[in-house]
């Protein structure tokens, strides 16, 4: 069984991004970049399936600038067997990404595609679902447990108010939620080995996909600053303020 995992290069989760002064975008020049945490979980899940003998090959795909190679190398250090970079300097949006991934699926014919439920930069939560529609494959989103058996995959999903398990015929798409697993650290010996693993590069053009943005960002601005809190003298004053100023009681 072959698994395709998608990995995205994003601003590190711990970096506090600020809007550019002209309000056109967020300023991420010189910011630390890392693998999207949900993608990392996807890689871990794929590697575990391989370690269990369920999967035979794990292919990591990333779309973006040349530097996205770093995240593919990370995925390979974690256990992916080879990598594909779809290189472009264009700003990528979910539809463009889904189309590229669909083109890769056509070439690679994976039995399972595992990807993050969303990336922490755009927080779109669309790519997996769009890919499901484009590829005509069943989808199990927000997975907290994945079990493959006899040509099907059982995906336990985190939904409002509980868990739901869906059974999908392979090939299928799974998007990961936070509790699916705890990714391992990249081991240094494996990083060394990952350098020798094959990494192919292609482009949206070569895949025949137009990735031009469909959605335009009008303006980026910081959220309104919260005004500083005050200390009240006693409970009576608190109640008075809640009643008359905040008007919540």
């Amino acid at each position, binding site marked *: 069984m072959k698994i395709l995992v998608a990995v995205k290069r994003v601003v590190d989760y711990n970096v506090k991004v600020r809007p550019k002064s002209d309000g056109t975008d967020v300023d991420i020049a010189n910011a630390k970049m890392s693998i999207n*945490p949900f993608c990392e979980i996807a890689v871990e899940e794929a590697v575990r399936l391989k370690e269990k003998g369920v999967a035979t090959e794990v292919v990591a795909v990333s779309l973006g600038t040349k530097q996205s190679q770093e995240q593919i190398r990370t995925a390979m250090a974690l256990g992916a067997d080879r990598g594909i970079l779809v290189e472009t300097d264009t700003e990528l949006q979910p539809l463009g990404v889904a189309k590229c991934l669909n083109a890769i699926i056509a070439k690679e014919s994976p039995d399972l595609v595992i990807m993050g439920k969303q990336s922490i930069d755009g927080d779109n939560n669309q790519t997996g679902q769009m890919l499901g529609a484009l590829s005509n494959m069943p989808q199990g989103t927000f997975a907290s447990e994945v079990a493959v058996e006899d040509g099907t995959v059982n995906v336990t999903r985190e939904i409002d108010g509980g868990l739901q398990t869906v059974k999908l015929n392979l090939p299928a798409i799974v998007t990961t939620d936070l509790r699916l697993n705890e990714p391992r650290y990249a081991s240094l010996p494996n990083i060394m080995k990952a350098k020798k693993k094959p990494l192919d590069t292609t482009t949206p053009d070569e895949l025949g996909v137009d990735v031009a943005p469909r959605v335009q960002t009008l303006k980026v601005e910081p959220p309104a600053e919260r005004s500083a809190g005050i200390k009240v003298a006693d409970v009576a004053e608190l109640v008075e303020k809640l009643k008359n100023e905040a008007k919540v009681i």
Partner: protein
Amino acid sequence: MPSTPNSEFITAPSDQRRQQVAEQLRAFIDADKVRIDEESLQGHGCDWTKLYKVNPLAIVFPKSVEQVQQLVRFACDEKIALVPSGGRTGLSGGAVASQGEIVVSFDYMNQMSDFNAVDRTVVCQPGVITQQLQDFAEEQGLYYPVDFASAGSSQIAGNIATNAGGIKVIKYGMTRDWVAGMKVVTGTGELIDLNKNLLKNNTGYDLRHLFAGSEGTLGLIVEATMRLTQPPKDLSVLVLGVSEMSAIMEILRAFQNRMPLTAFEFFSESGCKLTTAHGLQRPFESETPFYVLIEYENQSEQDAETAMEVFEYCMEQGWVLDGVISQSESQAENLWALRENLGECCAPFTPYKNDISVTTSQVPGFLEDIDAVVSQAYPDFTLVWWGHIGDGNLHLNILKPEDMAKEEFFEKCQAVNKQVFEIVENYQGSISAEHGVGLVKRDYIQYTRSDADVALMQGIKAVFDPDNIMNPGKIFNS
């Protein structure tokens, strides 16, 4: 404990006496900032050591320099000793009041002001929490580099009074290196301004440095101007599994020959077991006797390459068995937690702690000697080693077996103290690398400082504190 002021000889102040003194103090300190209730007395009367009988006369929270001066003059007149108290995270008993002293807490003098972007300095009241300063620096796009696991509770004046070190000393030095100037109230109640924040000031003795590490024995630090610096860029963290102690210094040398490091720490497998039992993920599956944590700045792509090359070299030499590298800041934090959570994970075992140092080059022989003595003396005890080993600083922790009484355990540990400190003396090392002397190490100071040395220190104390009211009995008998 040998230096415990014995409770048999010191009777607790009576309630009446406490009431009377509180009354007097309230003449110049806000009424609610003078406390004699049992909870305050016990809580603010001691530091992290929890080894001593706590017996303060009162706890006072001054809110201004003037109040501090009045308090000192009052103490002189009444011949009452003062114990300065910061975040009470000290590990040497420096902030313990066991002889009926008044504890001076700076919890309510905790403001920062006068940030100067050109000088890169900020003025701190004594009670500013270390982390508060770190966060402030970050907001300004700057960095306060002194850091350790207790930074969320310890205070700047406490850090200065202990000259705290921590996890970044290898690159940034100790607390004293970050004090541009400070104001202190001496034992006579006099306010003096030390160094006035100058970078260059060769006008005689730099008294500022006497206060760094003074443990409250010379006077009260009532203000400190702290320096800030450029933040480090893109830190990566490696955790390597090491085959034996002697390999650790080879690894340090191999890395330092090729790249500047911001941290070089180590811990033992026994420590790794403790932190992972509290939910942290193991760095890698295999267990190795020791682990080193290395942190460096990724100034350019070349740095990651260099780190990999050195790692490969260390593997080839057989020093390193396995290793991981952080791929994100969250991972870097989690790897750091393996080292930084050790103190707290050990705490429930009432550990016996040692904080010893030698010059870095002597660490391997020193370690071997200490390890031999300690494992012979404690074949059944769990030893947890960790430390800022890049600075030659080792923390040895011995965990109390659950079924052994505290007294028996400490008695057993005391027996080996002498042997350990004799080795320290042979290597011309320090019996207290960064935690200070306080009460815990007082009776052992001669292993590191000569009689003449101690006499001079006592002489200096007498100059600043003629009435001997400033934390008497700490560092040396006074």
